[in-house]
């Protein structure tokens, strides 16, 4: 096969470069595929959480490198960093932080708009699907790498007709470094 010389490649469509929907489009394709692969919504939810966890444990390094954020001293600082730096950086939104528990170990992230669900409608036979469950896994995995065991779960979802999307974050415990068995 005889190929000609290299062709110069001019720009034709600068607008396309400004679009940053690749992640949300790919995520949609993933959820669609998982719904085909797994028989019930619960399994899809678990799989999204697991994948999110695997992403989170690596994403934290990227986040710390980009954001230059220092060590958080308490869960309130953590909440601020999650909402005002991390969400803003990766998803372009700043959820509000509300509903603190009296003990200061639980709070809610309220997302007025969830960028993952642009153009998405849940079909009728997937009412138990937690479409954005990857996010919960990401939060859990990322925080585990900075020594925090947390639980993250969706308690409201615009895809299910709620007015907002709400993620409830609960601090479980601080993770100490584990010693190998047999050592003191």
């Amino acid at each position: 096969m005889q190929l000609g010389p290299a062709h110069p490649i001019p720009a034709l469509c600068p607008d396309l470069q400004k679009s940053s929907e690749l992640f949300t489009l790919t995520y949609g394709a993933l959820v669609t595929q998982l719904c085909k692969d797994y028989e019930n919504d619960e399994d899809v939810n678990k799989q999204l959480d697991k994948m999110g966890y695997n992403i989170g444990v690596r994403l934290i390094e990227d986040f710390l490198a980009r954001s230059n954020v220092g060590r958080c001293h308490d869960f309130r600082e953590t909440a601020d960093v999650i909402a005002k730096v991390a969400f803003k950086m990766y998803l372009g939104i700043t959820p509000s932080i509300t509903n603190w528990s009296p003990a200061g170990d639980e709070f809610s992230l309220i997302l007025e708009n969830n960028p993952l669900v642009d153009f998405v409608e849940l079909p009728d036979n997937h009412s138990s699907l937690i479409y954005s469950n990857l996010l919960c896994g990401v939060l859990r995995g990322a925080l585990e790498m900075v020594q925090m065991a947390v639980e993250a779960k969706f308690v409201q979802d615009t895809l299910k007709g709620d007015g907002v999307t709400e993620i409830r974050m609960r601090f479980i415990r601080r993770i100490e470094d584990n010693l190998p068995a047999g050592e003191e």
Partner: protein
Amino acid sequence: MRTRGAGRLLGREGRRMADAVLFEFLHTEMVAELWAQDPDPGPGGQKMSLSVLEGMGFRVGQALGERLPRETLAFREELDALKFLCKDVWAAVFQKQMDSLRTNHQGTYVLQDHSFPLLIRMASGLQYLEEAPKFLAFTCGLLRGTLSTLGIKSLVTASVAALPSSCFPWGMPAWRRQPLTMSWSSGFEHSSRHPHSHGMQARWAGSISTLDREET
């Protein structure tokens, strides 16, 4: 809470970079997930997972293509469509242009990227070279999907010539230093000689080549 420097990173350029990172992490996880599901990934199973990844990429490529302004869809020549793919689509997805585009003007196009981002993260090593097709399938589908929105039927495959020379784990023998070349070959056959016809047939081909090793 110290967030020095975060302001600059939260601007539009920072957002695009971060979105790219999210996509890369998601892509890596998707490859791992779709492989893990198959308990016996023999040659047939491997093909199924590759075609699943390719199919997902196709849908994403179509969706990206549908977001294009209508003017851009009216390419006068097929080559213009390929140039668009190499510059605008590739840059939207990977924040860089394709490094070269060549054609034989008979429906075959070879696109080369010297530092394909989805492969950069992989360690170098012969066993990882065998894994490379899994990391190319989604992108092949994406190109095919975008082309289909432009009215061009195609078959896209990719080959990897070498893994990045910068990714040597400690203690590995030094690989012969070659730039990473990912070649995308596309063969187009015109179903009619009319330059503005749509529905042109296309055929792409690719292969994986193994590296020579030299001991340090």
